[in-house]
């Protein structure tokens, strides 16, 4: 039996880690279940992803599909048709625009990703504190997170000085942070919303010699960030999880469903947790590439 896996290409750190985990899992499962075949494709835009799905159905006779939709809306129709044809469908991370299409949903919670960070600021910063925000690639994921963040800050008296897109990219984040630092003499916190962005922001802050002045909260639990947290780094006190390894969970559950016919349906939401110096050890994975 064949499982098709379609995920976004490794265009930035988190997606890269996603790719890594997917490949690892496929290798592992191919050994564990010699009867299972896997087809892994990666794409860089929604239309190409639809093409990949078409190819899997037309030429690879897949029995199950694990898909992380590049975007929800455009993929909903095509995935629905695949599901309707009797193929098992597991959707990962970015949900579809219509309920009830997929058999299994494994996801992080983007709203909680934003609100966890927002709540942390609301709890730890004083009223009138100033925050700058780095957004990701313009997308629904990014929108949901920012909404969650804004909602959590509401009524806290914390001022958001600026929000610009750094596209989940280190270089863009470095540049943007440099410019934030020139523009605002006083910044108390940075919500970098993604650990690649946090890396860029930290480098800019260090360059400007303004370490101590502000905290930086990234997201997704990159190894380096967790390491700083467990070492009580002043600038990086916490992080919010959004494990790229969720793809492994999704593939494993799907494979298990196929070989064991144990029903694996339903939603499997991996909530975003706050990583703090206290619990950091549990989130540090030496071998992880991310």
């Amino acid at each position, binding site marked *: 039996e064949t499982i098709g896996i379609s995920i976004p290409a490794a265009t930035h750190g988190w997606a890269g880690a996603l790719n890594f985990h997917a490949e690892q899992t496929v290798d592992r499962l191919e050994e564990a279940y010699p009867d299972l075949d896997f087809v*892994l494709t990666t794409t*860089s*835009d*929604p239309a190409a992803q639809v093409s990949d799905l078409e*190819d899997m159905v*037309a*030429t690879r006779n897949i029995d199950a599909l694990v898909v992380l939709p590049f*975007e929800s*809306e*455009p993929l909903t129709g095509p995935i629905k048709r695949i599901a309707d044809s009797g193929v098992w469908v597991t959707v990962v991370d970015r949900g579809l625009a219509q309920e009830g299409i997929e058999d299994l949903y494994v996801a992080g919670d983007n709203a909680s990703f934003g609100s966890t960070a927002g709540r942390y600021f609301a709890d730890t910063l004083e009223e009138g504190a100033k925050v700058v925000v780095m957004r990701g690639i313009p997308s629904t994921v990014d929108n949901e997170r920012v909404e969650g963040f804004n909602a959590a800050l509401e009524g806290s008296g914390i001022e958001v000085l600026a929000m610009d897109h750094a596209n989940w990219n280190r270089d863009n984040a470095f540049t943007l942070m440099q410019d934030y630092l020139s523009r605002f003499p006083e910044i108390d916190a940075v919500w970098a919303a993604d650990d690649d962005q946090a890396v860029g922001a930290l480098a800019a802050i260090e360059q400007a010699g303004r370490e101590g002045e502000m905290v930086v909260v990234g997201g997704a639990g990159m190894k380096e960030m967790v390491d700083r947290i467990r070492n009580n780094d002043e600038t990086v006190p916490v992080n919010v999880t959004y494990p790229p390894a969720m793809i492994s969970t999704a593939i494993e559950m799907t494979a298990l469903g196929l070989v064991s016919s144990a029903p694996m349906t339903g939603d499997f939401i991996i909530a975003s947790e706050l990583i703090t110096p206290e619990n950091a050890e549990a989130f540090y994975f030496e071998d992880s590439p991310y």
Partner: protein
Amino acid sequence: MTSAVTEKTARRTPRRRVDLKVIGPIVALIALILIGMALNPNFLSYANITNVLARSAFIGIIAVGMTFVITAGGLDLSVGSMAAFIAGLMILTMNVLTDRLGVSLPVILIGIAVALLAGLVAGLINGVLITKVGIEAFIVTLGTMGIYRSLITWLADGGTLSLGFEMRELYRPVYYGGLFGVSWPIIAFFVVALIGEVVMRHTAFGRHCAAIGSNEKVARFSAVSVIRVRLATYALLGLLVGFAVVMYVPRLGSASSATGLLWELEAIAAVIIGGTLLKGGFGRVWGTVVGVLILSLIGNILNLTDFVSPYLNGAIQGVVIILAVVLQRSRGAER
């Protein structure tokens, strides 16, 4: 003596070279097809062939227009973003109209009209800036590329613009339906290509494009309206981008800042692989069609097997693109 001279002149264009140029891309295409067949028995299945051809239609239709632009010595980097922007505009319009007119055919027709018109206007804007204001095509279209990409992001508020669900169902057949088992986008692509081929080879317009691309001054001295023809190539390309969008929207029912990403590079690559000269002066529409199919097939074949790490897909595409053109290099280093 006269006869001796004639003889030599007649001998002059060695057939061999011409043939290689013509055959190059076709050989590459056939090689890809053979590889596909060897790798997967389903490669030639009706479903797979339909999929590949239908999804080639967007780039294909655009690349046909691009062939004219490049033949006339121009370039257009904005087509991908333009497609995204037009798709967004079309969806917005249709959603607004659905509220008023309900889920009905007129909404689709107006949507289509909006897409075509927007394409035409966008093409004209590029064309006017290039021909009348006189800015380099590369700069103008690099500029409008950024502008349209921004505008779609802004229209969609950073997210995705989606056609209402029922509307989408009504419009779907334009991509998924067809005639005698041939789906509409395939029909549209081949009709556009056929017309393009005829226009390029058998009309004054096509001839004038080549003349302008070959030597603008000569064309001007020969009473060719250089500005008008150039402008027309951009307008035509814009219109075809609009037409491609008309096929694209029913496929995904949405538009976002990721729509049409890198289509410009793919379209230009298809044109060049097909044998059209990047510096202008000679264009070949059927070659472009072959180029588009080559590019589509590479992607398809990579999905047929899992020989290679998906990370390396791009590398294989790169190698095949270069190889496809090596086959047709004519004068080689002499050039």
